[in-house]
């Protein structure tokens, strides 16, 4: 009996060893995570609390940064800008770094909730494309409080096997032919923007009538919807469970990579071009580590690994130079000047956001009721 037990144990150990070795073999082919400029990071220590979107960083980067600087990173995730805003406003906010979008940054600056970045500690900021800084300048004048992390457009992801006509307009999302096969985006500004654009209005409108018309159109769309989601949309599209979806370009790229029947288009009525920038909120305790992390993610080589991993477009010119043609030539990853000219950035609406919120609340109340 003893012999049998030891035999089984030996077998199990042998299996474990092989597994470990095959593991090593796999890692040989893994990506190159070296620093572009052979940077050296000094020991900083302490903790760094980061608040970011879900599936929005190559987690290998977190491990490397922890090893380089001895900083312990606590990484939390959010699903919407509004959720992040709520967390940042809380009196016991602990975050040192977060990644809000354009219009939220405008609001955070206006409310004096951000720390001005010390550019002398972020030498890698030189990698960021001038063209991108030109656009982010519109919501963060002089790019003093934030640096672009990722950017992209909002558009329609569709399944070419289910949709045989040409997709070039937001109108198709109201087409009854696709009832039960359409995903709307579960975010106040994005969903209302889709409806506003379709009606030919500005996405930053401060006209309550226009917002209400957009809301009425959204309510008419409810019976056609499969759902109203965020990160779950791309899985559903990948698995051919829906025909059309409002998505961010990065989610579209990931889904298209996994399902060749999917295609992405920025409709002719125009769309939203958005930026998620990295900022340091006033609640930050470890400013040294926060700046080091911003510098670290802007390393040309690491930024290239990061964008490959999460599929969102990088504003980092150094990283773009390291990517192959599959990225640069892809209209969804790297939209043309013509596409960009149709897109506009969200701006903070001030108190008018209440009109958007109550329209949204009414829209949501109509669902299933």
């Amino acid at each position, binding site marked *: 009996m003893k012999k049998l037990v030891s035999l089984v144990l030996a077998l199990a150990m042998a299996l474990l060893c092989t597994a470990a070795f095959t593991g090593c073999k796999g890692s040989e082919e893994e990506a190159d995570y070296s620093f572009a400029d052979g940077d050296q990071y000094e020991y900083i220590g302490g903790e760094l609390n980061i608040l970011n979107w879900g599936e929005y960083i190559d987690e290998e980067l977190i491990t490397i940064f922890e090893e380089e600087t001895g900083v312990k990173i606590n990484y939390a995730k959010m699903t919407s800008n509004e959720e992040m805003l709520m967390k940042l406003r809380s009196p016991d906010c602990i975050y040192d770094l977060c990644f809000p979008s354009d219009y939220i940054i405008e609001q955070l600056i206006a409310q004096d909730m951000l720390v001005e970045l010390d550019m002398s500690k972020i030498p890698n900021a030189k990698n960021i494309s001038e063209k991108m800084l030109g656009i982010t300048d519109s919501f963060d004048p002089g790019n003093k409080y934030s640096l672009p992390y990722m950017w992209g457009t909002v558009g329609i992801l569709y399944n070419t096997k289910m949709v045989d006509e040409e997709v070039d307009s937001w109108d198709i999302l109201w087409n009854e032919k696709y009832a039960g096969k359409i995903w709307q985006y579960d975010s106040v500004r994005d969903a209302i923007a889709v409806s506003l654009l379709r009606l030919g209005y500005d996405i930053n409108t401060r006209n309550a009538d226009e917002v209400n018309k957009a809301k009425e159109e959204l309510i008419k769309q409810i019976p056609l919807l499969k759902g109203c989601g965020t990160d779950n949309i791309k899985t559903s599209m990948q698995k051919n469970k829906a025909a059309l979806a409002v998505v961010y370009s990065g989610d579209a790229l990931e889904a298209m990579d996994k399902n060749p029947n999917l295609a992405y288009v920025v409709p002719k009525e125009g769309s939203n071009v958005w930026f998620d920038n990295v900022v340091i909120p006033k609640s930050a305790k470890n400013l040294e580590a926060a700046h080091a992390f911003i510098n670290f993610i802007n390393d040309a080589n690491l930024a290239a690994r990061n964008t490959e991993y999460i599929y969102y477009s990088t504003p980092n010119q150094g990283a773009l130079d390291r990517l192959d043609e599959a990225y640069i030539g892809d209209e969804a990853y790297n939209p043309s000047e013509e596409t960009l000219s149709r897109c506009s950035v969200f701006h903070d609406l001030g108190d008018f956001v209440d009109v958007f*919120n109550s329209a949204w609340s009414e829209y949501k109340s109509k*669902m299933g009721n």
Partner: protein
Amino acid sequence: MKRKVFAYPYIVWMILFIVVPMFFIFYYAVNVGGQFTLTKFWSTLTDVKNNWLVLWNSIVIALKTTAICLIIAYPIAYILSNMKKSVAGFISLLFFVPMWMNFILRTYSWYAILEYFIPGLIGKPEVSFTGTEFSVLLVLVYDFLPFMILPLYNTLSKIDKSLIEASRDLGANPVKTFFRVVLPLSVPGIVSGITMVFVPAITTFTVPFIIGNGVFTLYGSKIDEAFHQATGVVGDYAVGSTLSIILVICVLISTLIMNYFDKDKESGGQVL
């Protein structure tokens, strides 16, 4: 009188976890950015076409859930109560095993079953069974069924069998015995079962969120959404807090109604 001492920890508990949180809900309902104001409170309270409509629909869904649970659970509990204790114990354990798993995990499993597994099984992978009232109801019933079975089983198994024998001796047939003896004696179990299902069913927001694909709004989802889009400089929880107060009052009323039906507080199964 000395025994009152043992109640003190409970009083402290009540103050810390019931009175203080309730105070904060009321505080935030009438407070926007540190300023006392009734505007948001009043506009939320009078927003009939949104908030009250959703509340009404949530009450209907919760009532349907409770009714279906009762219809399914009563026969199960009745059969269990007539079995040998050891067998009944084992079978009721089977009903409870799924509850050892996390609630959200169970709900996500149901999503996978309804969205991918069943359509695959019937050979129509493009079909979807999520996002409908039926699917939300199904998962709510699944999640809350054990809360109905347990109090019913407890009450039914405590009924003195000699009362049933006496009823049969006096000439009542099994049907009459059930309706005249067993059913009235099991009212406390029914009442606490209803409370235990109705209250969580009316406040749920994970089930409509996950199973409803985000296009099925229940009252819990409204509260969740109100907190997620809080605006203003310091954060504006007035809408969410007011919605919560309305819900607390609804739950209170339903509990009072239930307690009215359950005057016999001595019998088992009483929970709230």
